[in-house]
């Protein structure tokens, strides 16, 4: 039974990590352009590099 004492916090911690990742991804606009990324990978030359730090 003592295993529970660390198993439950471990499960909660991992779950919380997933939740945080989800909240981050919605806030960071990961779902704003769902089609663009799939097409951008096909560009084969060094196109304009976009500043990622801008919004």
């Amino acid at each position, binding site marked *: 039974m003592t295993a529970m004492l660390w198993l439950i916090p471990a499960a909660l911690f991992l779950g919380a990590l997933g939740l945080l990742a989800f909240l981050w991804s*919605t806030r960071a606009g990961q779902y704003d352009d769902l*089609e663009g990324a799939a*097409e951008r990978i096909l*560009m084969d030359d060094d196109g304009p590099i976009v500043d990622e730090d801008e919004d």
Partner: protein
Amino acid sequence: MAALEGDQAKWDPVRRSDHPATTGDAGYPAREEAGAHVRLTDAAQGLKSLDLAVEGARCAACIQKIEGALFKMDGVKQARLNLSTGRLAVRFFGADERAGDFIEALDALGYPARPYAAETVKDAQSAEEKRLLRALGVAGFAMMNVMLLSISVWAGDGEMDLATKTLMHWISGLIALPAVAYSGAPFFGSALKSLRARQVNMDVPISLAVLLACLLSIYETAMGHGEAYFDAAVMLLFFLLIGRWLDVRLRARAGQAARDLAALQARIAHRIDADGHVKAVPAADIRPGDRLLVQPGERFAVDGIIVSGQGPVDASLVTGETAPLDLKPGGEAWSGMVNLSRPLTLEATAASADSLLAEIARLVEAGEQSRSKYVRYADLAARAYVPAVFAMAGLTLAGWLVVGGSPHTAVMNAIAVLIITCPCAMALVAPAVQVVACGRLFQDGVLVKSGDALERLADADYALFDKTGTLTEGKPALVNADAVTPEDLALAAQLARGSRHPLSRAVARAAEQALGPGAVADDVREEAGGGLSAVIQGVPLRFGSASFTGADLAADVAPAGDAALEAWLAVEGRAPVRFIFADRLREGAADAVAALRARGLPGEMLSGDRPAPVAEAAAALGLERFSAGLKPQDKIARIEALKAEGRKPLMVGDGINDAPALSAAYVSISMGSAADISRSAADLVIQGDRLDSLVRARDVARASRSRMMENFALANIYNAIAVPLAVFGLVDPLVAALAMSSSSIVVMLNALRLARA
């Protein structure tokens, strides 16, 4: 101009721009108005940003061409295209006027772009969508962790001692209660609001079930009895939030699409200042008495009176008539008209309360108020459901007391009834079906602006059609091409290619179809109200009205029918050649009308056009009932008469004159090429020119109504099984969790069938 139009036709399948009213102003004003939409993002560096809506970008090559070209321009720091929304964000240094250069560069690449007023798009709805998504994430996290603990409790049934079980429940409660408080807030808030208004909606039984489940679980755990419903409570919220989020997203998306259409039309007018300078200003800033310059191809931004200049305007969106109108000084011009050939100076009368647009906006508003009385199926279900559930819980309480159960058992079983009847599946029924149906129609080029529009479309039992621009193409086309020799057509086209007059464009299109692209004659002169003249290879040519070309003097000329428009080509030394034009029916219009009739929607045509062309079109379409020369008020009167007979009329229209009728009808559809106000007044918008989308929309609406009814039936079957269990005290947390989740999943799967049918 003709060559550009040809290009557009190739790359943009959903273009709404072939209407002369919208193609005409594609290039020139967009270039000038761009500067007004530039925002300063970083004052210290002088960095400015501009959002552009780009048409036609579809693939990697497009991204590369667009971003690459802009990036090469001086001072451009960043250019990023969002392929999903067609929005291009540009950041640059330099003067605001540089915005025009970007648009020019994009136009040269073959991607027409327009400034996009980003600030008009920020809305409360997307904030609500994000809030629900976060709530969904929290509920999902809590559900998974609580379920982990619950499964060990269920699996350990009989072996686990009470102390361990109670510990598990306390931990579950510690996870579930904050999650319920956060994720359940949207439901609790809505339920409170509705109770304050002395009404009940679905959120009342939902909130009650969730709260009771939590309170009961806390009580049981504290007493050490060992039955807890924390898992059921968070799972309920998780499923309910999926439904709520889908619903909000659908509304946000539809609203977004409607606003996109409006934002693309961000209106700019050219005001002539006191010192004679012409300046581009937002149309909203125009005051009555301002003098405006309206260039050829530009749309009138406001109502006004012509002060100087004379020339034809395209009024088809305003009056529903295809033939251009000639405006002279002193003549009235209405916003929505397109200036065709000569610069006109206008004195604005926009703010006067009796202007055309103000009157139409008032009628639209009145129509929308009457429509908001429509009650959605889901709300109807809630009205019947809530009293039934409370009655059932009351009976359970009384029944157990009567048969001699302890008060504790009686209360517990009554609460179990309230928990198990939580209308989770009920709340999912409408959003799940509507999201799938609207997504399906979107792929077919039909934009649905609200979920209940589909319900109303499924109920409609009468169809009213506007003629010009709806059943017809809304622009004249050459109909006697057989009687004109290819040489004459080519000559006329050389004159016509440089002109924006609808008849000139019809000739240019006919020549392009029959002979392919051709040249434009040098030094074409356009005479307002007359026609075009030029000299080609030493021979003087004239193309235009009978009097302008001298054709009215020729003896052997029979007048054309009342329905027809005509123009003449006069080549020196030859008899004039007649070109006859008519507003052609859209392809498939007759089939669409017949298909709707077969689906229980008899049709009728309501047109503002002259009687002769209306009768002709009605005969060709097989519509027995039609009326011509109607004003907007007359169309509304006809709709009200039908409603008084108990009919539910569907209105299909496109012009500004149709907007009040569109909002007065039971349900309405406008064409993608329609005037802004009509698109915003209509419930559904058909992109592109295909009328068979009307039939598709009706079919999908009917299919989604049957799916919805099936789903209500499924949710009730679930209740028919679960409620007796609860009444007789047989529900434990395991049964509750299983029954609730399975009913929700079944309802969602049934809705997904729509995507394949």
